[in-house]
Each structure stands twice: as C-alpha cells, then as structure tokens.
C-alpha cells in the first residue's frame, strides 16, 4: 500500500519571505512618516507619493542585493503596477466612503415612505422623505427600458445577423451616439417634443431623453454579445430548415440571453444617475406622481441637485442620503447583472 504524501506548494512564499516582505512594507511606512515630518511637505498626497518611492526603492534594493539587477527591476515594476491599481481605487473608495459617512445620517424609515410635498428644506429629518424621487427614478428607468431594449437589440441584430448595407454607417452612428452629452439629449427632447407638442414637463419626456442615452449602450453591448455566439449555431439552425428569423429567435437570442440581460443592466446603470436632461424636462415635483404623462415628476438626481442648492443643513444631509440610495440602487443592479451573467457558467 502506498502512502499518500501531504500536498505542498513548494513555489509559495515561505513564512520567512512573508516576514521579510512585511518588514520592507513597515520599514517603508515608518521611513515615509518621518521623512514627511522632517521635510516641509505635508498632506495625504505627499505621504502617498513618498511611500510609493520609498517602497519601490526598498524592495528594489533588497531584491537587487539578494538576486541581482533583473530581480530589482522586476520588484520596481511590480510596485509601479500595484500603485497604479491603488491609485485607481482611491477616488472610488473615497467617493463611497464620503457618501456613506455623510448619507447614513439622513437614512430613516420615513425617508422611504414619505415625499417632500409636506416638508420644507429646513424641516428636521424626521419630516419628509424621498419616496417621490425613488419612485420617479424607477418609473422613468422602466419606461426607458421598454423603449430602449427592443430598439437596442434590433439595432444589434441588424449589425450582427443581417449585416446589411447600412451596417457601417449605423455602427459609426451608434458609437458616436454613445458619446452624446446627456444635456444634448435633454435639449433635443425639449426642442423637438416638449415645446412644440406636449408643452408641459413630465416623466415621460425625461424617459425619452434617457432612452436616447441608453440605446447606444444596449446596442453596442448586445452587438458584442451576439458576435460571441459561434456562427456554427446559426449554420446548424439554418441547416435544420429554419429561416433566418426563426434561427435568430430560437437559437441565437436564447444563447445570448445572459449577455443581453447584462447589456440591459449596463444601460440602466448608464442612465440611472443622469441629471441634466431631467432638470430640463421633468419639472421635478416634490410629490409622489404615479402618472409619468402629466405633472412634475421627481427623480433622485433632481432631488439631490435641488437639495444641495437649497443650502440648509437638513437639505444637504437629505441630498447625501439621496446619493447613498442612488448608489445602492446602481450597486444592486451591477451585482444582479454579474450574478445573472455568471449563472450560465455553472451549468
């Protein structure tokens, strides 16, 4: 009978290596602290940049002494890469931390159950809420989804399945459209529909402008997803006697389903926080309005903008709370997008 050896990882860092790495890190931290203290520099940026230089020098020198100049270069490049990644995370982490620390004070039960119709900006936080803004944003996003998903996916199908004569110009336009500033979309709806036709603010006008911003995102993402579907499947469908349309509907689209859902959610995340078109088009009411076709329509971005503008301490706290709610909504969407698109891998 053979004895089974214990599994090992001979390539992994030994405890001794780890202690050494930690020593270099702590040494760099301590050195940075005193260096900044004794020189006229100060501030977070100074700490960060000095620490980076010191850490790169320390680990580079150590590896250089230990294993030669190639290892030293490797260690320095390594620390540059780490710093790049950290530098990207700092603003994101800092935004999240600020929003959470300032926003949580405004979070209360009544925030989600009442609107601002009976409250003034200077009212205490126990009075009034953002139900109108949450419901407004959700309704407008829903309308924008209903408009954009079919249009976006059909555009993507034209580019991947029909590959018609206008494919190149359409592709170019879709790409260009994804760079349209949101205020332009708002002004377009204002001048093309609101002023000449409806002549009044409404949630639907806002949703139309949001659709203009959402369609390119959905079309481009869907196009990429559909291009990933192997052409074998299309050929197999047609070889079985299916028409092109039935092959697309029965095989291509179902095979791309999770990717198309991701495209939808990316589209929602693109527009959920858009502010400029809503300022122009919705009128931004303070009351819960279930009818997107008439009357001023609240939304989270509008509410945040308005509360910051009003300047009172309570209003500003409410604005931070609104921001927190908006970020949490977008975060939930992203997480659900990721879990939906990864579910496919499991089976």
């Amino acid at each position, binding site marked *: 009978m053979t004895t089974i050896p214990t599994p090992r990882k001979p390539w992994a860092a030994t405890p001794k290596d780890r202690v050494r790495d930690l020593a270099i890190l702590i040494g760099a931290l301590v050195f940075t602290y005193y260096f900044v203290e004794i020189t006229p520099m100060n501030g977070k940026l100074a700490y960060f940049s000095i620490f980076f230089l010191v850490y790169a020098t320390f680990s580079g020198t150590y590896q250089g002494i230990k294993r030669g100049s190639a290892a030293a270069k490797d260690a320095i490049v390594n620390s540059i890469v780490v710093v790049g990644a950290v530098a990207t995370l700092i603003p994101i982490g800092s935004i999240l931390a600020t929003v959470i620390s300032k926003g949580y004070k405004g979070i209360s039960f009544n925030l989600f159950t009442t609107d601002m119709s009976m409250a003034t900006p200077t009212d205490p936080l126990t009075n009034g809420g953002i139900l109108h803004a949450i419901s407004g944003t959700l309704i407008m996003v829903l309308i924008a989804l209903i408009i954009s998903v079919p249009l976006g996916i059909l555009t993507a199908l034209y580019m991947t399945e029909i*590959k018609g004569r206008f494919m190149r110009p359409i592709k170019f336009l879709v790409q260009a459209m994804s760079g349209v500033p949101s205020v332009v979309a708002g002004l377009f709806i204002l001048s093309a529909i609101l002023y000449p036709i409806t002549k009044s603010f409404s949630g639907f006008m806002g949703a139309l402008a949001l659709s203009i911003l959402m369609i390119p995102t959905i079309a481009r993402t869907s196009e990429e997803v559909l291009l990933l579907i*192997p052409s*074998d*499947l299309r*050929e*197999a*469908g*047609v*070889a*079985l*006697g*299916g*028409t092109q349309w*039935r*092959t697309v509907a*029965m*095989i291509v689209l*179902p*095979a791309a*389903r999770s990717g198309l859902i991701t495209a939808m959610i990316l589209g929602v995340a693109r527009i959920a926080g858009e502010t400029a078109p809503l300022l122009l088009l919705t009128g931004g009411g303070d009351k819960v309005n279930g009818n997107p076709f008439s009357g001023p329509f609240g939304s989270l971005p509008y509410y945040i903008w308005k509360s910051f503008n009003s300047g009172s301490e309570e209003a500003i706290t409410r604005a931070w709370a609104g921001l927190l709610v908006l970020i949490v909504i977008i975060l939930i969407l992203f997480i659900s997008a990721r879990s939906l698109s990864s579910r496919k891998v499991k*089976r």
Partner: protein
Amino acid sequence: MTSAEMLTPENPKVLGTGLEARGVHAWFGKNHVLSDINLNFAAGTVTALIGPSGCGKSTFIRTINRMHEFIPTAAMAGEVFLDGKDVYASGTDVTKIRLKIGMVFQKPNPFPSMTIGENVLSGLKLAQLKVPNKDDLLEECLTRAGLWKEVKDRLSAHGGSLSGGQQQRLCIARSLAVAPQVLLMDEPCSALDPGSTLRIEETIRELSDSMTIVIVTHNMQQAARVSDYTAFFLSDGGPGEMIETAPTSEIFSRPKDKRTEDYVTGRFG
C-alpha cells in the same frame, strides 16, 4: 446493379434515384475553388469524399444543401438534383431543401440554450413541423443515433453536459428528427476520440438503410469502413477537381488514377 455503374453520371438508369451533382463549380470571390464536379449518389448508399485539405470537399457538400451561399462572397455554377429537381432552380424554397438534406458539422454544435430533448426536436420547431408523438420521435432519433441508452434518464440536462462524442451523436439525432432523405457529414469524427468515432461509424452504417449519406473524411480507414463508394478530390494549386470515383473497395485496391493511388497509399496528402 453493379456498383461501378452507379457512380457514372452518364448512366441514365440511376438518374433521379437520389442525389446528383452536375457540373458543379464554386467560387469565393474571384477564387475558383471547385471545378466541374459530376457525382451521382444513389439512394441508400454511403459515399465518402476523400482528398487533401483545401481541395474543396467541404465546399462541395455545402453546395448540395445550399449552405455555400452563406458566405457573402460565394458563387456557384452547375446543378444539384434531388429527386430530379434542381435545388438551385428559381422559386425553390431553400428551407425545404435543407429539411430534405440534413447536415452534421465538423465540430459538435448542440444548441446551448436547449436541453438534450429540446435539441433533438429543435428542427421541428425551427421548420414549424408538427408530429403526432414527440416522445416517440425523440426516442427513435436518439436510438438511431446510438445515444438513447446513455441519455434516456437525463433528457432535460443541457446538451453541453455531454462528452464530445455524445454531442456529435446528439447532432446526428437532431438531423434525423426532420426525416431527411440525404445526410451530409462534414468530417463528423475529426474532433472525436477513437471510441466515439467507432460509435458514429456504426450509426452511419445503420442509417444508410434509410437515407443517402455523403461523408467528408480525412481518415482513409474510416472511408474504407463506412462507405460504399469513394470519390477522390484533389487540387493541384488550381480549383479542386474530382479525380476518380468508384466503389470503395476498388478505390483502395486498384485505383485507376496514379494520383489516387499515391493518396490512398499515403504517399502524399
């Protein structure tokens, strides 16, 4: 009927009994890839197309079920008769042609969004056909493809959960469900291990009782094992041509053309 007569296109006795290609040429853009192919496939036989890579075998079978036109730059000339009717005649419903001439591809390609059972019956849905009893058809197709025993307890599992060889037999079962007269197989075993290859070869032998099979293969032993007739294709830098066609035993024992002999004995290609 002697088998030697069967494959001569000039022989009027066998015209119209199965499938016939007459003067088929094919192009991709300006590139002439296939020149003047005349082949007759008698009903209920297995014909192997052999020849080095790039000689147009796959292109040829794709002209038979009109999959050739899927490539945007493709063009063709000639006629392909199925039951005496040219599949390229104007007014022909191409989806009906593909229903009668099924195809199995080189790489197994079960539909990923469908279960094993749905995959088998997918042709019916795609072509909007009605059958009285789907369960019977499902069992029959999977049995004929030699897969029933392995999958009967997990018909609602996804096609992707099968092994490569099983997936290919699933694709064969899928083609059988729409009851084709002709089955084209484009190197169906090239991605499979020897055991799966053997199973598929058995399947081909069994199917040949009820349909005409055309199989492209790079495996000479496979051609010898499964086919009644063999056609040798070759391209000498120009468009691919059909050099010789004969009953398989003759092609392998006493080929008429020197190039065929060199190829089947492994001297080139």
